[in-house]
């Protein structure tokens, strides 16, 4: 099923560090030392030498506790922070497409790539939405940046996306402050999907929602994934969410990937002691 030619994202040696680093960083940080910060030079090694490949139509989960580096990794892929080292290659899932290194793109190209090819849903809706604009205006932003210039057609597209994400289309002009938490996540999903992105990034999208609301949002994501064969990268601290959506999973701790493989395998037969702890406490 995962034919070698159909990869979408290929990440190698991805590293993000805050601080200059020192010769003793390597021997004093990482999962074995229980910290990502060097006690000698105070450098924070937020993400170290991360590498993975994401295939067309696949959902890859990234799990770890807060401070593990999973959010840093997500921000790196979303191109909102610059890596200290490493490469992020992206390829359209078509036959004759050429791969491009997102790290070396200039700001202008990056902005337009991000708008067109990436979609992101944040844990906190106010990070992804502008609460001063209407719901429709928020969903329209990516379309407008991609030079859609016909309000009638833009609104047709917004309506289509609202229906797809199970939002009442008659509320297109409403103030997002009147929406519930679960609905705001749908608005973010509608916005993320508006450009038909090649990759959807989901950053703790159901954290903080009630369990029943959480289940409905997860159902929606699963349906979109199924219907559109959408490639997704899913960050969560919650193994339950990972288990429902991700076929493969990466486990991170103190800036390092400590284990990766098929989600079922990781849950049933965790190898790394940290993963074992995570699985036993979650299940």
């Amino acid at each position, binding site marked *: 099923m995962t034919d070698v030619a159909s990869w979408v994202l290929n990440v190698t040696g991805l590293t993000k560090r805050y601080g200059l680093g020192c010769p003793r960083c390597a021997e004093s940080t990482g999962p074995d030392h229980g910290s990502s910060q060097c006690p000698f030079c105070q450098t924070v090694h937020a993400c170290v030498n991360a590498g993975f490949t994401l295939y067309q139509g696949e959902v890859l989960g990234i799990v770890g506790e807060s401070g593990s580096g999973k959010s840093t990794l997500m921000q790196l892929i979303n191109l909102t922070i610059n890596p200290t080292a490493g490469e992020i290659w992206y390829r359209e899932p078509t036959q004759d497409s050429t791969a491009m290194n997102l790290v070396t793109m200039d700001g202008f190209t990056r*902005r337009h790539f991000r708008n067109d090819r990436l979609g992101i849903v944040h844990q906190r809706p106010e990070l992804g939405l502008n609460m001063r604009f209407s719901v429709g205006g928020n969903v329209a932003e990516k379309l407008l940046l991609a030079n859609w210039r016909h309000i009638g057609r833009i609104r047709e597209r917004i309506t289509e996306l609202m229906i797809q994400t199970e939002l009442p289309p008659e509320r297109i002009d409403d103030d997002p402050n009147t929406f519930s938490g679960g609905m705001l996540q749908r608005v973010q999903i509608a916005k993320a999907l508006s450009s038909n992105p090649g990759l959807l990034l989901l950053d703790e999208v159901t954290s903080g929602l009630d369990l029943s609301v959480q289940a409905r949002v997860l159902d929606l994501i699963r349906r979109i994934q199924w219907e559109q064969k959408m490639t997704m990268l899913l960050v969560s601290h919650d193994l339950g969410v990972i288990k429902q959506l991700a076929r493969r999973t990466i486990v991170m701790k103190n800036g390092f990937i400590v284990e990766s493989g098929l989600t079922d395998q990781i849950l049933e037969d965790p190898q790394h002691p940290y993963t074992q702890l995570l699985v036993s406490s979650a299940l």
Partner: protein
Amino acid sequence: MTEQHTNIYNFGFIDEDSKREVRRQLLKAVALPGHQVPFASRDLPIGRGWGTGGLQITMAIIAASDTLKVIDQGDDESVNAVNLRRLLTRTTGVSTTVDTQAATIIQTRHRIPEEQMREDQILVLQVPMVDPLRWVEPNLERATVMHGEADYGRMWVYMYESVIKAGDIRIATQYPVIVAGRYMMDTTPIPRWDVLRLHNADHLSLFGAGREKRVYAVPPYTTVEPLEFEDFRFKTEYAEGQRCHRCGATNTFLTGHFVKSPGTDEPGHWVTSCSDASYCDKQMVAQGWTEAQE
């Protein structure tokens, strides 16, 4: 009273190094149409916000051989235009004119002259607010990055919201435009009537904001496109059947004012006339009226 002190100042008031710096930034502005270029704005003996940006551009580019026209609201005799002209002539001695055709440099606030300008003329516009993105991003540091990445999505949402909430694009002046297909630019408080007259113009337009310390430019034959939608077009103030009550022009920008014949019992009434006063006078002279001396 202060006339005898004038000669202690340099030609064009500001010193030559400062002029050179302004010209360097103007060259950069011309090379990057619509892009805001920071410059070290000098303190002038005119209030900040009263045209110090336009003045510094004029001071930096003017030569003794130039013929200057200064207008405010389209009017050469507006108190502010008189005041700025007084400073410029006092410190340069250049000749002035009210005739758009005769001027080599025209400094203006809020209008572009009605008569079409030529390749050999420069229009200097005074700018109060520089960044069109301030409506969606007041922080300059972030707005600068947005311009760099042509990240104008949020501004377009602002336009979309205007249509959705008001049924129309509710921007009267300082209408945002895209210059040369790249940078979003504030057109200064010129009316929408004038916005399209920047598009592919024969003349060079230089914009100066003294208080905000930025210059920008629209070179000749450069596209200037107002933000609009295919189904909600940019509209000017032009109204069918409009007419100047003085010269009878039907294709100019008009402003309203109150008239009353002196020494009569007539109660007075509101009329509209050309805001470009010298153009209006020119039309009247052509119709056989005699020009009054001040």
